[in-house]
């Protein structure tokens, strides 16, 4: 390389390093600003055979950590019951039920559980780690064509149907509980609110107090929003899937979901969705018919999704 070319190459490398340094400085500043308080650090989790990397989610019941299984170098997620040895019987029973439900499920588009246990009084289970984005972020970011969105959605429906065939109702289906991996494949997550259609443990029904809302309101069926747990069955999930698809195709909800909770519940129960074809172009009549059937207040009207989608 002659001198001029070498100088140019050196300048290019220096310029590239300057860009990396700038990005690095921003990242380091962000980490320094949000470094966990020492008491939070003490709450970090350790499990033999796994190298815990970081906390990735802290919810009402549990904390989820990202980790590497040392024997296989596989990335996993470990969910730990938050209260640890101080968890009461109902919290332990709910966690056990989540584990039992996940252990029944074996489908390429449902997150798999590998192991469970108790360590230092902390109940935990180990599952797939799914890097990637939520379903709605993926669809918006990749600007997918209608056909591709429907193809992706069909896989989600097949996964949910597989759960239903095992007697499992998810009860919290929404875009953030469906992650898309780097290969563009969907994975249904978070069976923390799931129930068994025929629960052998009658006391499990008592976990949901009559009139108590369980789920995520914008995607909840009318019977779910009204806390009528005795009416919840697989069609509850069908309703939620209908709302998710409506949201993916129109970038809006079938009815207003902001405002006072009572108003939202009333909207869910009584407001007819706007026809998707009036909101966006390119939604054909067949898809619109399916779309309007599923977020439908009348339970008996809701269609059998996987079978219908096969024909689309």
């Amino acid at each position, binding site marked *: 390389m002659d001198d001029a070319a070498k100088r140019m190459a050196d300048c*290019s*490398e220096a*310029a*590239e*390093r300057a*860009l*990396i340094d*700038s*990005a*690095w400085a*921003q*990242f380091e*500043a*962000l980490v320094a*600003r*949000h470094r966990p308080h020492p008491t939070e650090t003490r709450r970090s989790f350790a499990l033999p055979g796994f*190298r815990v*990397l*970081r906390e*990735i989610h802290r*919810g*009402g019941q549990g904390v989820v950590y*990202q980790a*590497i299984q040392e024997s296989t*170098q596989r*990335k996993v997620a470990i969910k730990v019951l938050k209260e640890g040895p101080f968890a009461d019987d109902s919290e332990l029973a709910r966690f056990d039920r989540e584990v039992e439900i996940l252990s029944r499920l074996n489908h390429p588009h449902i997150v798999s559980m590998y192991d469970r246990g108790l360590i230092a009084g902390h109940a935990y289970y180990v599952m797939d780690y799914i*890097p*990637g*984005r*939520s379903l*709605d*972020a993926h669809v918006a*970011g990749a*600007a997918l064509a209608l056909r591709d969105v429907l193809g992706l959605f069909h896989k989600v429906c097949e996964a949910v149907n597989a759960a239903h065939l095992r007697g499992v109702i998810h009860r*919290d289906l*929404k*875009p*953030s509980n469906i992650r898309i991996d*780097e290969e563009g494949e969907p994975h249904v997550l978070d069976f923390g*609110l799931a129930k068994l259609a025929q629960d052998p443990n009658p006391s499990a029904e008592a976990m949901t107090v009559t009139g*108590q*809302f*369980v*789920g*995520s*309101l*914008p995607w*909840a069926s009318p019977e779910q929003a009204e806390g009528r747990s005795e009416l919840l069955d697989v069609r509850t999930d069908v309703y939620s899937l209908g709302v998710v698809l409506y*949201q993916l195709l129109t*970038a809006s*909800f079938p009815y207003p*979901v*902001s*405002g*006072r*909770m009572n108003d*939202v519940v009333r909207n869910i129960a009584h407001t007819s969705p706007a026809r998707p074809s009036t909101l966006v172009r390119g939604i054909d009549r067949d898809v619109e018919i399916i779309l309007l059937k599923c977020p439908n207040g009348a339970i008996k009207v809701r269609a059998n999704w996987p079978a219908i989608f096969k024909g689309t």
Partner: protein
Amino acid sequence: MAAVDPALLNKAVEGDTAALRMLLEHFGGDVRRRISGRIDKRWRASLDEDDVMQVTYLEAFLHVDQLTARDGAAFLTWLTRIAENAIRDAVRGLSRQKRPDPARRLVAPQGVDSYVGLLDCLGVHTATPSREAARRDAAAILESAVAKLPEDYRTAVRLYDLEGRSVADVAARMSRSVGAVHMLRARAHDRLRHDLGAASQFFTG
């Protein structure tokens, strides 16, 4: 493409950002060569490769948890995909700017309404006992989430979404191109949606 030490890759996959930095220095030029020419001539006055590469590097640090590459080729693919997504975000923003939606931004949002507007834009919804409480909630929750953004993302969101400035004004204040502002805003929104959990914080029982 020169070979890379597998130990360095393994460290980066485990979340070692110092190792990741070395990999970015090693492969950055290769990614730049791959994206060279991908920016359509229509947009070159508003977006350049330096803008794309800086956002790419920042995104790489922010998403190191998603890195699973075990060899140099896989790492190069991962990094190139980040750069391509950044270009796509910028072009989408620039295209929308050319064809403004008449229903959007007729009036620049003000005060708490700008927070509510941003939440709507992100697709995040609240249901609290009163509309006024919902607006106050939106402001508090967003302030917390915006504070957790990297500096460039935070500035783009504050100036455009919360203060209602034009893209050109934001670009001038940040000493960046218009295309870069679109990219930064798109990445910031992605991050906010993820952190806010698309309404799950507000409703899950």
